[in-house]
């Protein structure tokens, strides 16, 4: 049994070494970046990290004479690891600024850990209204991604304008957080805009066959189908709708119809789908007049991104780049690393970014700082995107699918 003692002793030393506080360098600005760098949400985390990395690089790696040090942590797409990473960043590394993670479940799991020290926290993901509710009135919480309800507000309105009243809507939603969260909002906004909801069908995440659901929907003969699912299920949905020849004139997704990932996987089935987003590849957005180097025109930025990463950017790349760049500018303007002062500068930012104006505003759900909720509704026509909404940016009319 002495062996047990010794082993325990060794372990204790190991744990102690792990937990010992690092020297805290004064001449650096430290920003925590917990992302999903492995596990099932690795695609999100990878985009987050790319965006942050690129922002720091373009900014020049320094604010004044202080080096920017980003502490990336892998939250392993796991809630316990997220709590640990968050706690480690805020309480051991003592960072005052955190950006990430992205997936709604992982962000939600980080909230209690955030409450311990309350650093300035930018969440460039999670559309969950649970999060909005939990962070009600928090002055240091900044959300740079749309909330669940914002997806459907614009889409329902623009479709009502184009199609007239009295049309029938069928909704397909996934059994995960994503679908469950958005379903009530989709119902509310479509009903408000004069649509009748004839079917709400649940699908299992990762299901191998959606045909049963599609056959049930077929019997209700809807004019519009809204698919509130994650990208993986979105691929399955689009392909099977195409195969089943459901003859629904209007197919609406959430963010996925813009992803190359989705369109490559669905092939010709992608044609005609309508999506909702804050960023669209090839969209025209001008550079900021004063900070053109940091916030170039979207076209220039996309060229730069492709040069660096040899691939097309996705919207989380853009969202994370923009969020991080705004933070760096705010720190510079505050002239200090005091989180309260930086937060103040952050809310005052008035920059023309690739995602639209950087103005933060409170939301009806009670979150204080929300940016980039100018949703764009678009339709895929062949290889192109036609913007349907908002009216001032529209460059085409809704085309019904045959």
């Amino acid at each position, binding site marked *: 049994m002495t062996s047990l003692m010794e082993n325990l002793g060794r372990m204790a030393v190991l744990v102690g070494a792990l937990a010992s506080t690092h020297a805290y360098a004064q001449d650096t600005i430290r920003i925590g970046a917990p992302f999903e760098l492995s596990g099932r949400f690795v695609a999100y985390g*990878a985009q987050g990290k790319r965006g942050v990395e690129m922002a720091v690089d373009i900014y020049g790696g320094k604010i004044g004479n202080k080096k920017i040090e980003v502490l990336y942590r892998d939250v392993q797409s796991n809630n316990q690891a997220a709590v640990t990473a968050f706690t480690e960043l805020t309480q051991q590394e003592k960072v005052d600024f955190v950006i990430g993670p992205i997936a709604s479940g992982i962000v939600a799991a980080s909230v209690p850990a955030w409450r311990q020290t309350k650093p300035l926290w930018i969440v460039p993901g999670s559309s969950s209204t649970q999060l909005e509710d939990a962070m009600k009135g928090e002055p240091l919480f900044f959300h740079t991604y749309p909330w669940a309800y914002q997806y459907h507000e614009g889409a329902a309105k623009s479709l009502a304008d184009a199609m007239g009243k009295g049309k029938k809507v069928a909704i397909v939603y996934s059994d995960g957080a994503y679908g469950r969260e958005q379903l009530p909002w989709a119902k509310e906004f479509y009903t408000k805009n004069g649509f009748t909801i004839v079917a709400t069908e649940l699908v299992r995440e990762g299901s191998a066959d959606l045909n049963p659901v599609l056959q049930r929907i077929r019997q209700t003969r809807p004019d519009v189908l809204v698919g509130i699912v994650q990208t993986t299920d979105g691929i399955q949905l689009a392909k099977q709708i195409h195969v089943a020849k459901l003859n629904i004139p209007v197919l609406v997704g959430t963010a996925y119809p813009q992803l190359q990932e989705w369109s490559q996987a669905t092939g010709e089935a992608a044609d005609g789908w309508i999506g909702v987003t804050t960023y669209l590849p090839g969209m025209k957005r001008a550079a900021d007049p004063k900070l053109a180097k940091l916030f170039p025109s979207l076209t220039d930025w996309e060229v730069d991104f492709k040069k660096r990463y040899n691939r097309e950017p996705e919207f989380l790349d853009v969202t994370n780049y923009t969020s991080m760049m705004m933070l760096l500018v705010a720190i510079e303007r505050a002239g200090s690393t005091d989180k309260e002062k930086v937060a103040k500068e952050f809310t005052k930012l008035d920059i023309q970014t690739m995602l639209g104006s950087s103005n933060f505003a409170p939301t009806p759900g009670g979150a204080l700082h929300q940016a980039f909720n100018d949703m764009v509704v678009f339709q895929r026509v062949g290889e192109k995107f036609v913007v349907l909404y908002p009216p001032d940016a529209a460059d085409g009319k809704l085309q019904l699918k045959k």
Partner: protein
Amino acid sequence: MQARFVIYALLAIAAILLPLVAPPVMNNLILRVGSLMILAISWNLAANAGLISLGHSAFWGLGSYAALLVANRLGWPFFASLIPAMLIGAISAAAIAVITGRLRGIFFAIAMLALSEGLRVIAVMTPEFTGGGAGVFIDQALRPSTQTVAMVTAACAVGCAIIAYWISLTPFHYACRAMRNNENAAEMLGINPLRFRIAVLSLSGAMASLAGGVNIWYSGFLDPAIGFDLHVTILAQIAPILGGIHTLAGPIIGAFATIGLSEVTRVMVGEQGFSLLVYGVILVFSILCMPKGIYGTWLTWSQRKRQTTPTAPSATKAATP
């Protein structure tokens, strides 16, 4: 013997009191190591009786949901909520013991896997009751301090270790071992396998649910994917295997080693996907090169050493439970 007990007791008290003085990151580690230790002891207890569970996340999840629901709906505080958590674990485990009757080995393992997946589906499909896929936060106003939760976790871990030790002293433990080796033979020896099965599994289930219940108060957010996460099942078995299966010290050492490993890979390997990869590689190699786990390997090594230098005869006995 006496001196050793005193040292253990002091160590246990130190572990429980550590959260009072430790930095918050340390508390986080105490919590993770402690809850994994409970889980590992629980898993090892069932494994000792020949019941290999591939669904310990079922108990963990039930415990988490029980604690969260009584807190959010009935306003039960931290300590009180752990009682229904343990009860539901014990009751469901007893039910499983009865239902699975004489299933053994791989069949019992798969039945547990099915149970866990089935419970996840139920949690997803009853959002009015569980919050469903969108998940729920535990009532913020009821949450105790991190220190309290860490202390309770450490205390529970110590408690579970004591229970496991106590079992190793009673005839119960021999009955379990007999069942592990051959249930029919055990029956002939006058052991009622079903009664033992129910007893062992209930205890194991209650422990795993307790770990889940404590943990939800720390992490504060629950959804079906978190509650019935396969990762919990994996950790529950990796820890005893890594530490040394069918031993008292194994799960305890294993819990430290597993969390240590996970932390090292998480912090050191920042590149995409690498941390879980390294975790997997280490798992594969430790099973190939150290099938008896850290403790078992150490024992073999020290026994060999002792054979060459014949001293200290008393230390070997405690190693076998």
